[in-house]
């Protein structure tokens, strides 16, 4: 009832979510994610889509023990604020890592994973997660 996972929303975000396409400001050069039409830094309306780098480092992280509906089977999971190599910030789950071993500054890379499975419809949502970077 409270899962709000729906096909149209998934579909319209698919390419940006699969390929990590964010925004780049043509005036100040600021890069950001998720994409939107105005620059969060300088307010410019001249923003273009930009494919963001797949690697970055963990700025902050949290281990979620109290999940929303639909995520209870993945709990506990790690959410992190990741700064990509070009400075854009992305919120993402970390995967392939023990929550205890996550450290600020840790190098990570994007990986396409299942975000969740919707029980009622059988619909599977894919998207980006980050895992410890390969050397």
């Amino acid at each position: 009832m409270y899962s709000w996972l729906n096909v149209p929303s998934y579909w319209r975000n698919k390419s940006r979510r699969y390929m990590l396409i964010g925004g780049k400001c043509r005036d100040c050069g600021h890069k950001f994610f998720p994409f939107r039409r105005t620059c969060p830094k300088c307010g410019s309306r001249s923003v273009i889509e930009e494919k963001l780098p797949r690697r970055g480092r963990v700025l902050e992280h949290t281990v979620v023990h109290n999940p929303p509906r639909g995520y209870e089977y993945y709990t506990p999971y790690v959410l992190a604020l990741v700064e990509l190599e070009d400075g854009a910030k992305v919120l993402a789950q970390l995967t392939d890592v023990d929550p205890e071993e996550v450290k600020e500054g840790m190098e990570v890379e994007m990986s396409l994973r299942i975000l969740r499975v919707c029980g009622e419809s059988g619909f599977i949502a894919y998207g980006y997660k980050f895992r410890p970077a390969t050397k």
Partner: protein
Amino acid sequence: MASIIGAGLVKVSNHWNMSIEDLAYEAAEQAMKDINSERIDAIIVANAFSGVANGQENLAAHIASSLGMARKPSFKVELEGASGGAALLAACSMLSRYERILIVGVEKLSDVTSLEDITSVVSSSINREHEGILGATIYSHHALMMREYMRRYKLEERDFGYFPIMMHENAVNVPHAQLRFKVSMEDYIESPYVSTPLKLMDVPSEADGAAAIVISRSDGPVKVSGIGFSGNEAVITHRIDQLDMENITAAFSSAMREAGIDIKDLDFVQIHDTSSVLAYLQIESLGLSDKGKAPKDTESGKFRRDGEIPINPEGGMKARGYPVGASGVYQLAESYMQLQGTADGYQVQGAKNCAVVSLGGLASSCVVAVLRR
């Protein structure tokens, strides 16, 4: 200048036997005790989650009807935790058209009985499409902010215990408070994690509640002497600095400027403490502590009810309770009682001026009201 001429509130609790209309009715009746409801010209309902939690929209019409005021103009203002502050701004801005406006804040969350569902409901305030899909919650957002605050100012977990301890202490004798018991640092440390390093004791528990005030164009016992409103980026990755709370400073300054008073004229302040870290960031943004020093100042007793500048003398969201969309109206009703000298159990002696901070999300909206008697 707008005045508050009546106020009422319901105990914050799980009111299993009361509907959202029942709660609103109780608070509105108290607020209109000395005012004939015929003399109310419009109704504004402050509420955050009636759509998702109760499946009830068109809420203002249903509440106006249950108050026997179906013919009056009514609408709902929704801005998550800042709904109450935004409703006050709307009411004050409408006084050229309506002489007296009833603001009813109401939230009914106990109908959502599972932990996952209530987490989903309260997390509908973060960006659903880009953050919610990742399994993020309002708590994981607070947690990331707490981690950054700890790192920047070299703080430990126990530094966050001082605030909830003070809130619980303040709420012990407050008749309408939800959590009227003291907690210790040991209780805080042993409290389980919601989303590390954020503990259960850092955040309020979801609850039902309703509060109401009547705003009047003519002179009354308590004046709304200033209002300020400023927003911040709503998606956390769009914030340049994760701890940027400049909008709180801006809203506070503009409300104080309008009121024509100085910070030392304030007898107490009500902040929107939806987590210990957000409480500290507000204290610092209001200029009551230096950056990174709010935990130490809280520990020192500076903000206790008998301290230098009391913060949340009624126990705040943490212990009075947090009926989200109604919380800003609770603050205004409590401040009204404080300034009238009728805040039994939580009175700040001789209070004349106060500031009320009402926040939505992670301070994505901040409304500050300055009141005086």
